[in-house]
């Protein structure tokens, strides 16, 4: 298939304390024109997955130890770095959480856009500048030609993220990885940036891997959602199915911990998930969530497999196995 397909991706951290499993058997599919949201608490491996796909892991200590990252039939995980250079910024692009610090403070916006055009499209001089202006207009920056010679510190966070997006889509990538693209922005600006991403996706048909811990953003943007916990995907499926009938106790906990916008929930206490994510060095033998799980029982001492409970809806939980979706929802 085309688009992104990650199969059994495992990343390990090679530290003095030993080899720590940062990602274990992560599998994802993002078809062209679709959006997959990757959610989970801090440290669950969302960004690690994104960096592994980009082959931008901090090496050492991190290294891909197993799995494939197929993009339009090519396994990025197996490409030599020299060939990966031609992929990054062209077929796969990435935008980051903090747009202000993601741009080089001593180079103009124009220089930073032109750089990627020169690298991948062989554009130079006036043609590159012209294309840069078009890109800035495309991402909704007013007075684009004048902005080209501005330095990043003169722009707001939202504007910087638009510039980052312009750089990312400059070569019409097949996949855009967006790592918490709106977390550092004001709420009103968040909506604008998400809308921009949706519009660009509709225009270019790129696959979008959206990393976020904001379930509201997931509901707004994504077709599918994958929930990660301690370096594994614990539940994955269409957004509606997962949100309406979460099967994994962790997913239920995440949804329960999200404030609802309506008035009904205003005085309700938010549910929290007791405990915290275990460090990579002290992962329990079986299901990593078991120590915090209200439903944990004897079987949880083993690692549950991701099994389909409904078409396209998979979960890795012994307690959820064989439980009809509606019963699980009632238990939430």
């Amino acid at each position, binding site marked *: 298939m085309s688009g992104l397909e990650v199969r059994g991706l495992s990343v390990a951290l090679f530290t003095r304390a030993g080899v720590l499993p940062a990602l274990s058997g992560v599998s994802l599919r993002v078809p062209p024109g679709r959006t997959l949201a990757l959610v989970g608490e801090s440290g669950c491996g969302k960004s690690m997955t994104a960096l592994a796909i*980009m082959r*931008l892991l901090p090496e050492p200590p991190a290294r891909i130890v197993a799995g494939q990252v197929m993009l339009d039939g090519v396994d990025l995980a197996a490409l030599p770095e020299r060939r990966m*250079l*031609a*992929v*990054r*910024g*062209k077929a796969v*692009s*990435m935008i*980051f959480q*903090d747009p202000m*610090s*993601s*741009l*080089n*403070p*001593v*180079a*103009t916006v124009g220089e930073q856009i032109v*750089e*990627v055009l020169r*690298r*991948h499209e062989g554009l130079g001089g006036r043609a590159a500048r012209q294309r840069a202006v078009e890109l800035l207009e495309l991402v909704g920056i007013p007075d684009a030609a004048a902005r080209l010679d501005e*330095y990043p*510190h*003169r722009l707001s966070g939202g504007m910087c993220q638009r510039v*980052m997006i312009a*750089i*990312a889509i400059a070569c019409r990538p097949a996949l855009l990885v967006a790592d918490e693209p709106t977390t550092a922005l004001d709420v009103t600006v968040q909506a604008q940036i998400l809308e921009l991403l949706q519009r660009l996706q509709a225009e270019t048909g790129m696959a979008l891997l959206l990393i976020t811990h904001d379930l509201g953003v997931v509901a707004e943007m994504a077709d599918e959602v994958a929930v990660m916990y301690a370096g594994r995907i614990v539940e994955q499926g269409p957004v509606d199915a997962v949100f309406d009938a979460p099967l994994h106790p962790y997913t239920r906990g995440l949804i329960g911990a999200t404030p609802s916008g309506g008035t009904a929930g205003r005085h309700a206490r938010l549910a929290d998930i007791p405990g915290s994510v275990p460090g990579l060095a002290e992962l329990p033998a079986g299901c990593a969530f078991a120590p915090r799980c209200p439903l944990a029982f004897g079987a949880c001492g083993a690692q549950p497999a991701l099994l389909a409970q409904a078409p396209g809806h998979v979960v890795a939980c012994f307690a959820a196995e064989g439980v009809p979706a509606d019963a699980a929802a009632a238990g939430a």
Partner: protein
Amino acid sequence: MLRLLRRRLLQGVPLILGVIVMNFLLIQAAPGSFLDVMSAESQVSDPALLEQLRITYGMDQPVWLQLLKYIWSVARLDFGFSYRQNMAVLDVIMASLPATLVLMLASLAIALLLGVAAGVVAAVKVNTVWDNLLSFLAVLFFAAPSFWLGIMLTVLFAVKLGWVPVGGMMSITATNEGTLATVLDVLHHLALPAMALGLFYAAVYARVMRATMLEVLSLDFIRTARAKGLGRWRVVLAHGLRNALLPIVTLFGLQFGTVLGGSIVVETVFSWPGLGSLMLDSVSSRNYPVVLGVLVFSSIVVILVNIAVDLAYLRLDPRIRAR
């Protein structure tokens, strides 16, 4: 930009005044005067003649008046008269200046090129053999006094290997053999003193560059540059180096003065006919107009260089320009 230049130049005036007053008073406080040296050398002991000389050189007047007169003459770029060379002090300085400038520029070029390159390589190859080797060399050259390093370099390259001359600035015959031959001859003589003076500063730059570069390379925009598909060295040089250069520029300005001072030792070791040799010679002959002149003159140079550094900052960092 022009406003900054004007402000900095105005700030420089009281600074130079302070330098003049301090040095003038220090020299007044030092024992002996050039009249003692002069009279001893020329075997003069006639009190009337000595008194006549004191009046000629204005030394019969009170110190504060001498000081005011000196400041006034410096303001008109008159640094006094050197009895020894029988020339105006400014002319004496100007005659020695080119040699020192050549030595300083060569040392600073060595320091910048070697130091920045070593720092960048050490940062990119952090915690490898290369990093360790470069860090070891940096500590070595940082710790070695320049006179010792100068002597060691002389022993190895001039005495044992005979690749370069032991000292001096040019061969006696060089001026007869055309411009190119003269330049080559000076470069030949320049190699050792420039190394002796430059390696210390190269070590300082290397340490600072390594630390700054490591910090810069961990910043978010470096990840962005990599995500664009730029090669490792392109990321380091186009995005890292430009951000990491700022502390080096500051250091350059600050060290310009110490390089000038350091050249006194190195010039002496290599008998390089520059301001350093002039200074040492003038101190031992109590030729205070020249000593004072060199001090004031180099202070002015250092202040001007630091103003230039401030202006360079404006070019390098757009965030400062905005303020």
